């Protein structure tokens, strides 16, 4: 039985994993880089180990340091979160070699699913539909041309070792095949040290729908239904929901069976996700498997009523799944919005910095998974995600209305955030009707980045407030002398008031 868990991650996911550990009564160990001494996961954990400089290549990605931290603290299990080492088969193997439980799938499953071409072959063998295209890496330009001749444009060229949109090229016109192929290979080599690429039929107006999987080490595998993840910007998910507004009950059940078959094909255990690409006619194709917890796992937790991290730990302990497929039902509707530190008004430029003030949304049907706090400086070294706002409603319309309300309540100052952008998505007509695909943001970009009109009053009140703040400062400065003015700033003055009689 797992007695102490080291969480080899940072940010909201580290805190989220520690929460479930705390509920299970399992002590946790945080690891942290130079930039993260003040990070919430260090404060939240029972123990904390320093693992090096801020860039993740020198800390969170260094297997030796993570293993040493586990040894030093006596942690008998490691939860990798998502990103970083979570899909590194070498890390999973190393844990096994060191006698540490890796809270995740087998190195074999990670390896098989991590290589897109192998995964594709495995899926074809298991009877899971895949997108028409190559079955092995492309080695020559002639081969590429022949394949494209066979399946027809548009096609997508993808890095075999890839992910996150790197090494990907869309080819719409046969004359661009060779230049795109070279560009994709060069990018793949730079990003992954491997220039193998493959070619797939490109699905127009696709939906990205994924299935949550749980498997134990006794051969039991269930799915926990789908997540609709088509609201994306540059291949990064922005909003996710479950159930998908697109699926019919029949297709949902059939995709679920294929998702379980896909996981079974690699004797999968742990939590994992089967990603499908779905066209408007509800034809669906296996895209890839993520052999880890997903960012968007909370919407599944809310609708199905299962704590996925607790199940990961149960499975890693050798326990059996406490439910069968028939026990699982989707109840109501859940939506997640990812809150990023970025400026939607300036082409989504990242916005690291100090959180000055935060008001979190509360109340019925709202879950908020974050890690920042007032005074915390979001470092420039890591992912710009601040938190995940998850709502539940009795139906889709109720959930959208609740998300609007929650976004209305959510205030962060100090850094720019995507909150207003997300509000506009929730107010968008196409989104409300559930008729959207992965081109949604691109197609509605202007509308989604345009401020709502306000009458003259709003602007005048803004003028008045700026004027008042300014004259208050002037008045304070003239009474106390200019050097005293900062302490008369209204900012956080109540804290000062309480300490003014001291010393």
């Amino acid at each position, binding site marked *: 039985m797992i007695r102490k868990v080291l969480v080899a991650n940072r940010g909201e996911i580290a805190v989220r994993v520690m929460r479930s550990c705390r509920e299970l009564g399992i002590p946790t160990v945080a690891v942290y880089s130079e930039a993260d001494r003040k990070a919430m996961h260090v404060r939240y954990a029972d123990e904390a180990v320093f693992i090096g400089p801020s860039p993740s290549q020198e800390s969170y990605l260094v297997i030796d340091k993570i293993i040493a931290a586990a040894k030093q603290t006596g942690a008998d299990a490691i939860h990798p979160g998502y990103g970083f080492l979570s899909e590194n088969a070498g890390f999973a193997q190393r844990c096994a070699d060191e006698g540490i439980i890796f809270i995740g799938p087998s190195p074999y499953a990670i390896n098989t699913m991590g290589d897109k071409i192998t995964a594709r072959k495995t899926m074809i063998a298991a009877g899971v539909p895949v997108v028409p295209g190559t079955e092995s890496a492309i080695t020559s330009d002639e081969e590429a041309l022949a394949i494209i001749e066979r399946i027809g444009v548009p096609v997508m060229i993808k890095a075999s070792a890839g992910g996150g949109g790197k090494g990907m090229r869309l080819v719409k016109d046969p004359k661009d095949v060779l230049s795109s192929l070279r560009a994709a290979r060069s990018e793949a080599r730079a990003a992954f040290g491997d220039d193998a690429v493959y070619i797939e039929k490109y699905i127009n107006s696709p939906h990205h729908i994924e299935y949550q999987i749980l498997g134990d080490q006794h051969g039991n595998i269930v799915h926990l239904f789908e997540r609709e993840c088509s609201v994306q910007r540059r291949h990064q998910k922005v909003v996710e929901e479950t159930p998908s507004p697109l699926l019919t009950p029949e297709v949902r059940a059939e995709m679920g069976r294929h998702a379980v078959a896909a996981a079974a094909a690699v004797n999968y255990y742990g939590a994992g996700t089967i990603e499908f690409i779905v066209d408007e006619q509800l034809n669906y194709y296996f895209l890839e498997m993520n052999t880890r917890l997903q960012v968007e796992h909370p919407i599944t937790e809310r609708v199905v009523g299962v704590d996925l991290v607790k199940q990961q730990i149960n499975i890693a302990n050798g326990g059996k799944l406490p439910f069968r497929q028939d026990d699982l039902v989707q109840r109501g509707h859940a939506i997640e919005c990812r809150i990023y530190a970025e400026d939607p008004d300036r082409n989504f430029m990242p916005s690291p910095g100090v959180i000055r003030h935060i008001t979190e949304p509360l109340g019925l049907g709202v879950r908020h998974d974050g890690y920042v706090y007032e005074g915390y400086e979001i470092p420039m070294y890591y992912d710009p995600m601040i938190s995940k706002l998850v709502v539940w409603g009795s139906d889709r319309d109720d959930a959208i209305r609740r998300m609007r309300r929650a976004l209305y309540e959510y205030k962060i100052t100090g850094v720019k955030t995507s909150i207003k952008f997300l509000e506009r998505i929730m107010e968008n007509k196409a989104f409300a009707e559930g008729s959207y695909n992965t081109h949604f943001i691109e197609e509605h970009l202007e509308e989604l980045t345009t401020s709502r009109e306000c009458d003259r009053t709003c602007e005048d*009140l803004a003028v008045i407030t700026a004027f008042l703040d300014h004259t208050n400062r002037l008045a304070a400065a003239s009474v106390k002398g200019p050097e005293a003015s900062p302490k008369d700033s209204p900012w956080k003055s109540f804290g000062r008031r309480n300490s003014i009689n001291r010393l």
Partner: protein
Amino acid sequence: MALEVRIGKRLAKVQLLNREGDRMKFEVDGRTYDLDMVEVEPGIWSILYRGKSFNLEIIPGSKPKNYTVNTLFQSYEADIVDAEAKYMEARDKAAFGEASNRILSPMPGKVVRIPVAIGQEVKAGETVIIVSAMKMESEFKAAADGVVREIFVKEGDTVDGNQVLIVIE
């Protein structure tokens, strides 16, 4: 006391006509506002105007007398335009030229690459510096044709938000 406030492209004239505690009367470009204004949290004002409840956030900007003001759906940049502000603006312009000729870092980050050198001619739209933050690289381009006059940073440097990186003339 009357002042000018620049908000977006508008230059608004604002004046406090009367004040009794939290009850204040303002005039903005000829329109009168009777307000009940309370700072409920530092930088957060609750304003009651004709019975409506407004919440405004006021955030000091990176430059003196500059604010970001957030209402429910808008975010405004507001500048107090007094005599000193006008002087400072003129002085900055003299020292650095038009703002459009300066490349400022819009965020903290790390300089990844500077593909230009001092004295080099650049065309409008040409990338002059690449800064990385939060796993994203942002390219900054010259706003107009010119010659690189100054480069204040080097590759690998960590930069703050709003720092002058390069001057082009």
